[in-house]
């Protein structure tokens, strides 16, 4: 039917790589959170691909779990961003070095 599973996994790896690049190189905290979302999505794509190849719904169940975790993570992460902005007037990660050794 569709494409080989390798290509689905390769697409997932490419998206994950783009997410890693965004999370490592960007300085805007909100964009870093978005890059983390992108990485979670890449993992979801891999899970859906494997679930489809083995015809096992378990992978899709765990995609739902990952989506839940992502939603929770965004709620908490954006709460942190808001309180950070309130204290520092910036969402630049280089300004936030409190935990940096």
């Amino acid at each position, binding site marked *: 039917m569709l494409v080989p599973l390798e290509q689905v996994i390769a697409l997932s*790896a490419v998206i994950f790589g783009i997410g890693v690049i965004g999370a490592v190189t960007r300085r805007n905290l909100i964009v870093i959170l978005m890059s983390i979302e992108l990485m979670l999505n890449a993992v979801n794509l891999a899970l859906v691909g494997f679930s489809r190849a083995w015809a096992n719904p378990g992978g899709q169940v765990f995609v739902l779990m990952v989506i839940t975790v992502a939603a929770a993570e965004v709620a908490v992460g954006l709460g942190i961003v808001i309180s950070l902005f309130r204290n520092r007037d910036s969402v630049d990660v280089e300004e936030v070095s409190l935990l940096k050794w």
Partner: protein
Amino acid sequence: MSTGAVLFYVFAGMTILASLGMVLNVRNTVASAMSLVVAMISLGAIYVLLDAYLVAAIQIMVYAGAIVVLFLFVVMLLNLRTDVFPVARSRLPKLLGIAASGWGLFVFLRLLRGTLPAISPAPEGFGGFRELGRALFTRYVLPFEATSFLLLAAIVGAVILAKRRID
């Protein structure tokens, strides 16, 4: 090439372009969020091509509908429309990030070659509401219930964190 394969490549290209647009757009955070929506919706289309219908619907609803709206809401609340972040002062993190992700990609694809099963036609009803709901409430009921604790913790945490002052 079948229609499904053509559609897969189209949506894969859209996903990659939109993610690149999200990561590389250093001027406008709202545009980044919009690129994220495009990436999410293209991924949802790929899920449909992979017979994961329920996951596709939830992807559109939760990601494109809720999470990105939350991002946009915070961007506009903080008034970050014009992003004033210059490029990072040192080049090192950028180079390291690109090198690390490229290396990871290379190793991953090398490991995968020739070990994966072919995708055969899906069984009847695969990825639909009925099958997934049954799996969710029988075999995977423990992780499903555990997510409710996670959501509770996240709600409490978000409220506490975003509160103006903790008494």
